């Protein structure tokens, strides 16, 4: 008898994968972008199921609120809305399909037979441990990522800035 949790997992993962497939196979780039939203949301759902509420929130904030918006902007900026083609055609797919399938099958077979470090799972909020970790053990990465972000900001500006006369 599947528990509620199981059902939730099944539902969310099916949704995630379906929208991922939408991203991959959709013929229009805008559709892909919207499918991506589903994937991101699905992933956030999975995070919740995995008791990582903080990550789930971050996911929604950054991915949906940041990246996805960026992507949609990019799509808009680089295509005329009315462009029927709104090109998202595929190349290589005759070979890519078997490749991707092979990768999936190999990974699934290897991973499901793998030996992973497992302890009793527990559903506790991760916010506190994450907060502690970020300011103690992971202080350095936390600082560095700020430099990376700074660099990315500067760089993005450099790249899109208009030609200096």
């Amino acid at each position: 008898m599947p528990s509620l949790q199981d059902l939730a997992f099944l539902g969310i993962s099916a949704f995630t994968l379906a929208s991922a497939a939408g991203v991959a196979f959709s013929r229009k780039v805008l559709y892909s972008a919207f499918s991506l939203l589903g994937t991101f949301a699905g992933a956030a759902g999975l995070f919740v199921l995995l008791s990582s509420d903080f990550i789930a929130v971050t996911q929604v904030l950054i991915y949906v609120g940041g990246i996805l918006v960026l992507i949609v902007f990019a799509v808009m900026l680089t295509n005329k809305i009315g462009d029927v083609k709104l090109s998202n055609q595929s190349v290589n797919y005759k070979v890519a399909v078997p490749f991707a399938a092979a990768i999936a099958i190999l990974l699934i077979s290897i991973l499901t037979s793998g030996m992973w470090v497992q302890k009793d799972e527990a559903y506790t909020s991760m916010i506190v441990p994450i907060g502690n970790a970020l300011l103690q053990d992971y202080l350095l990465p936390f600082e560095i990522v700020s430099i990376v972000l700074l660099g990315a900001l500067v760089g993005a500006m450099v790249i899109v800035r208009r030609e200096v006369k």
Partner: protein
Amino acid sequence: MVSLNSYLVVTAILFALGLYNVMTRKNAVGLLMGVELILNAASINFVAFSHFNGNHVGGNVFSLFLIVLAAAEAAVALAIVVSLYKQFGTINADEADSLKG
């Protein structure tokens, strides 16, 4: 009882879909979406491993960083795409082939 393996199957498929995407898309933005799929797969993996390892904090932190870095990368990548488009009017990655050989 949802096992770790169920999550692994999901991420494996997600990963493969991401790879498929980057192999086939013509549109540079489309390609970037593939990258995001892959990163999401990795992210879910981290959290899942973390969860099934007694809520080990490392995986969570890693996935947090993954998300942030993905954002940074996406920003730069999209900047490049936009700039290329502004200069040359296309973002079809397969047309960017003046470098080859």
